[in-house]
């Protein structure tokens, strides 16, 4: 039985306190409110699962409060408490949407069975939501968002198929923006755990001092501000997959803690004294060279070998040939639909421009470029002129252009990329400022007004 966050609403202090004492000894977290307004205030701020609500209270009575809870917090379960002899009132409350009722004083056995029933209901609802999410993810599962027909990507797909069923840790490497998380999701979707959760965390984006609590969870009172017990990502991933992005950023101490949790499949929440079990598959990703980090002493070798049982390398976009065209077409369709524009198409010159770009930001950069182009373009076609922020199509690079034309074009494009900052452009071109100034004069280049 899972523990619940329970609010007790009763105007009699003795009732509130005794119920709280009893529920807390069973491990539940309990909040108290002596009237309806206070209850509504508290319900707005915290994640309560269940309200035990006395029907007879001065001011806003239990029926009125039940109606307001149903309006504002339909997901919270409500059990009405009523004195012996007021059963009609409890039945009326059931018709108004209460989940159950108790006649006070209640038999401890009756209360325990009811709390168990509510905890089971909470678990069933959570599972139902999870299955619904998973089902929608599984529609066209697997490689739905992973698009590519190039040989390097076909090799990635084959590798995903090979490792998905194996239920062992996988390390995904590749430059930023290549779609490592999509690969992780595809592995999860094709694994035996695909009805469990896929829980992702970017370890590089969470400050070191918060990462432990994010991963392992914490008990109430574990540190200042820990007002409620919170489960961590490891626990959330039970029966599913845990995806640790940017795993190379994890500190040595955290590597030790994670290693222990991975080996024992159990761990302590921060500030906790009872071990929690979680059975998850670990999938990690990094844009760094992990072997080099091991050699530099930044990553423990035992941790590296534990997470790197199998690895998959996702190639950068510039090595994926025609995939740029495939991806660009896919993104155009996607964004056209999203902003309800008539379906657009890229012109051949736009495709040529995209194919020539070096894509240091990989697929993520392409996605952003296409989104911008779809938004700014006015007609049914997206032309190279809608992609000016990538630089103009290089007329001079077609065969037959002279060396002088190519040089002029390259200098001009570099200057434009640097917003005509001569110092920065000269650094990129590998020449000094004076030489660049001579090139600008020689090719009669002028900063646009």
């Amino acid at each position, binding site marked *: *039985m899972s523990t619940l966050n329970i609010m007790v609403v009763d105007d*009699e202090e*003795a*009732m509130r*306190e*005794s*119920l709280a*004492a*009893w529920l*807390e*000894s*069973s*491990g539940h977290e309990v909040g108290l409110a002596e009237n309806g307004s206070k209850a509504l205030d508290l319900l707005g701020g915290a994640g309560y699962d269940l309200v035990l609500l006395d029907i007879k209270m001065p001011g806003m009575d239990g029926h009125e409060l039940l109606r307001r809870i149903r309006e504002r917090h339909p997901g919270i379960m409500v059990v009405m*408490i009523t004195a012996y002899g007021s059963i009609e009132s409890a039945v009326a409350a059931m018709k108004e949407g209460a989940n159950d009722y108790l006649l*006070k*004083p*209640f*038999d*401890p*056995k009756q*209360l*325990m*069975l009811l709390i168990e029933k509510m905890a089971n209901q909470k678990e069933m609802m959570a599972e139902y939501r999870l299955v619904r999410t998973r089902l929608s993810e599984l529609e066209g599962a697997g490689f739905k968002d992973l698009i590519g027909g190039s040989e390097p990507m076909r090799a990635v797909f084959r590798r995903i198929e090979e490792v998905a069923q194996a239920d062992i840790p996988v390390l995904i490497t590749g430059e930023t923006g290549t779609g490592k998380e999509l690969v992780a999701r595809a592995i999860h979707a094709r694994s035996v755990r695909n009805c469990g959760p896929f829980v992702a965390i970017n370890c590089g984006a969470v400050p070191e001092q918060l990462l432990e609590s994010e991963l392992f969870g914490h008990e109430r009172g574990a540190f200042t501000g820990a007002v409620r017990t919170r489960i961590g990502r490891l626990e959330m991933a039970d029966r599913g997959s845990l995806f640790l992005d940017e795993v190379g950023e994890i500190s040595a101490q955290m590597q030790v803690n994670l290693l222990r949790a991975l080996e024992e499949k159990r761990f302590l929440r921060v500030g906790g*004294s*009872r*071990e929690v079990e979680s059975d998850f598959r670990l999938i990690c990703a990094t844009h760094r060279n992990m072997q080099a980090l091991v050699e530099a002493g930044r990553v423990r070798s035992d941790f590296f070998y534990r997470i790197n049982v199998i690895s998959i390398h996702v190639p950068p976009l510039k090595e994926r040939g025609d995939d740029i065209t495939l991806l660009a077409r896919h993104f155009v369709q996607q964004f056209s639909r999203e902003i309800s524009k008539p379906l657009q198409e890229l012109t051949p010159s736009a495709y040529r421009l995209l194919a020539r770009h070096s894509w240091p930001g990989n697929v993520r950069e392409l996605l952003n470029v296409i989104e911008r182009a779809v938004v700014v373009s006015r007609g049914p076609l997206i032309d190279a002129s809608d992609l000016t922020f990538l630089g103009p199509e290089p007329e001079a690079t077609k065969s037959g252009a002279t060396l002088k034309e190519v040089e002029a074009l390259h200098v001009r494009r570099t200057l434009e990329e640097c917003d005509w900052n001569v110092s920065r452009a000269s650094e990129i071109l590998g020449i000094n400022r004076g030489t660049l100034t001579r090139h600008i004069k020689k090719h009669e280049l002028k900063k646009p007004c």
Partner: protein
Amino acid sequence: MAGAERLRVEVIPLGPVDEVSVSVVAANIQTFIGLAVDVAPPWPEPAYALIPVRGQYNALPILKALSEGAGTDIRRLGLLAGDLCLPILTHVFGEAQVNGRAAVVSLRRLKQGRNGQRAPTHLLLERLAKVAVHEMSHVLGLKHCRSPRCLMSFSLGIEQLDALSLRFCPDCERLIARRILR
């Protein structure tokens, strides 16, 4: 074991309670929890906690009275012959302040045998030992355990209490050890 040497439990009869019951409780707490136990002279029956209309004692004021004046190294367990309840519950076998200083156990319902008969003495004492160790473990910070055979699991009734063995699951045993060393 410096911490264990410092922390002590006082078993206090609240009104008339037979000596055997008091001794059994003291011995079992010492054995299963590992804390030194003193048997204190009886306190008067807690008339202040009596709910006349129910003929039961409210556990909350009794816990408050027991915890008042208990030093930081003292934990108190009150033993009561009368029936015990919480205002919201029809009855309880015992009640404790989780992570607090006091617990109270009633003998009244533990005497219940089959077919309305009184339970044999050995069974009554075994039940009493279970409830006393369970409640005192709450005082040390343990909550109900999900392991069905563990002494810290919640008993839905006297039959389930009888089905429990007088032992902790490994997790709770470890927790007890940690708490008394703290």
